């Protein structure tokens, strides 16, 4: 990655996201977290856990509003997993590892699975000759809505089988230990809650947990189906609504995230505007995810045809983006 570009965006980050009052010292140093924007992610998780446990313990809270909220925040929990596994939230390594366990409970899968499945495999699509574990091609119903519903049933097992194979390689002992810790914490705490109050745990803890985990798998289909994964700038679909990206911690800007995985999530909006817009087919910049889902999966029966979306980048200006091989090598190095 170009150091110059990265540095520019880091500066933009400081400028566009003013330090929150009371969370930074007079010298501009943030307390506990690496970046002041991380408090938003911590807040999301706090709200999510509060929703889960209030439904579990307080019968009055077992209503559609709390349940729908818990499901949505469970999805956001997996968004936080994604961001945290790219760049740890906390300054303390130990705290980052504990945080992974907390997030794992929220999603009922070990958060560290994201390192091989997302950072190393998904970010590089099928560059190593085999399809991404969560490639859209893994589902092929003629009725496109079934593809959306079924996708996690295939991408989930592919992912966890792939993670198991990756974890068996030499030099992954630390990963295996952390993965086990997260599994024990997530499934252990869930099992304890099931033992204490089976039905309320199943309905008000486990269902939201599974909803989030399945949604983050579905996102792979939503963000890449009918795109050209062999291209540099037209491999992903972006959802660019400002309110959506505020709560989603800028995870709607997927193209720039793939290409410059090292950028902090808080600067993706400006990076998208600067680097992606000049090179992307306008159809891959969707203003609203809900509108896209309705249009693609409810109003149309068949799967959209693939178009030559990469034509936009052939017409666009050249870029200093490092080759995929170099980016993959950097990602592998970072995972060690």
């Amino acid at each position: 990655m170009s150091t110059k570009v990265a540095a520019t965006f880091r500066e933009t980050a400081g400028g566009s996201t003013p330090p929150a009052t009371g969370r930074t010292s007079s010298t501009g140093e943030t307390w506990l977290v690496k970046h002041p924007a991380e408090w938003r992610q911590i807040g999301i998780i706090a709200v999510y856990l509060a929703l889960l446990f209030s439904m579990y313990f307080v019968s009055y809270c077992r209503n559609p509003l709390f349940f729908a909220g818990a499901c949505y925040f469970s999805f956001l929990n997996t968004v936080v997993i994604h961001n945290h596994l790219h760049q740890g939230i906390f300054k303390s390594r130990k705290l980052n590892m504990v945080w992974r366990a907390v997030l794992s409970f929220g999603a009922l899968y070990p958060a560290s699975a994201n390192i091989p499945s997302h950072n190393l495999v998904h970010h590089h699509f099928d560059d190593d000759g085999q399809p991404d574990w969560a490639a859209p091609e893994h589902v092929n119903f003629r009725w496109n809505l079934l593809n959306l519903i079924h996708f996690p049933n295939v991408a989930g097992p592919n992912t966890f089988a792939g993670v198991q194979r990756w974890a068996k390689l030499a030099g992954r002992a630390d990963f295996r230990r952390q993965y086990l810790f997260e599994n024990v914490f997530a499934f252990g705490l869930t099992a304890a809650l099931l033992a204490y109050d089976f039905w309320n745990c199943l309905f008000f803890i486990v269902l939201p947990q599974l909803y989030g985990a399945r949604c983050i798998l579905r996102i792979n289909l939503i963000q890449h189906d009918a795109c050209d994964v062999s291209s540099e700038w037209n491999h992903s679909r972006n959802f660019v609504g400002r309110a959506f990206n505020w709560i989603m911690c800028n995870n709607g800007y997927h193209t720039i995230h793939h290409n410059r995985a090292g950028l902090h999530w808080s600067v993706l909006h400006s990076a998208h505007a600067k680097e992606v817009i000049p090179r992307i087919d306008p159809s891959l910049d969707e203003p609203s995810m809900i509108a896209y889902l309705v249009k693609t999966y409810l109003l149309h029966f068949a799967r959209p045809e693939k178009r030559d979306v990469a034509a936009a980048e052939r017409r666009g200006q050249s870029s200093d983006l490092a080759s995929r091989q170099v980016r993959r090598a950097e990602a592998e190095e970072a995972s060690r």
Partner: protein
Amino acid sequence: MLTREIMGALALAILWVTTLLVAGVAFKQATSHLRRLRSLTPLVPGQEGVGLLRGTVQEGHGEESALARYEVSQVGRAGADEGRRRTIHFSDRTFSGAVFGGKVKVANVELDIRAGDGDIWPERGAVLSEANCSDQAQFVRVYEEARKARGHLRSVKVNLKKGDTVWVFGKVRKEGNSFSLGDPAGDSILISAVDPRAFSRGKALFAITFAWVELVIAGGITFLALMPPRFDGWPSKVGGLLGLAFFLSVQPIGTAVRDAVRAPSRAFVRGRWVEPNPERDSTAASRSAAGA
């Protein structure tokens, strides 16, 4: 308020949508094998048309008199040690097949096969045997590359060669006194070391059995979960617990079934080498160190 009845109905609906989708995919896979089975009509020697013939490779124009070759490219990476033994784990990259051309004798008829593309089905045992580690020296050589970032790249190749029994599928045409095999419409020729009809029949049966067993289990769990006192008593609770376990396990089992019914030309090979004789290697290493 969200009562247990409402939430139970929601949970069972999720369970059934997943169950039906997984079963639907298994039925789709079975249908695809049955469609192939229907197209693999046996021909009698000397008959023209699209169909399947069994014969013996008489002549192959490839290396080692190969008529055709199956190939899977793999990358091997150093794995975690198992006790004192080092390991190498292989993952598949691409599958390919090539027809070199040659002749296949079917009863007393010779069938001419031209070089080109084709679907090549090897015997599973032959692929695994070819992918195996032969000795300690080979392991050490491969391990040196497998421990580097790039890994050890290799191709596992299986030839269908002179003297082998093969099944060939394609369009048989009479040209003068001889017969030739060409691509059937909209498809490529198939050259297989296993009986493709038996293979397709077996895989279709396997996928259908899985789908029905899955549906029956889901039905049993639903029955148990709905036993009175519904979402309150022990039988219902056991049903709920089994439902959760079923939901979490049916998805990996479904994908395992999908992998198990892949055509032999696309079946995963992967594999793992465990160091055959680490003692001998360390003795040799210490000897060479002493010599240096």
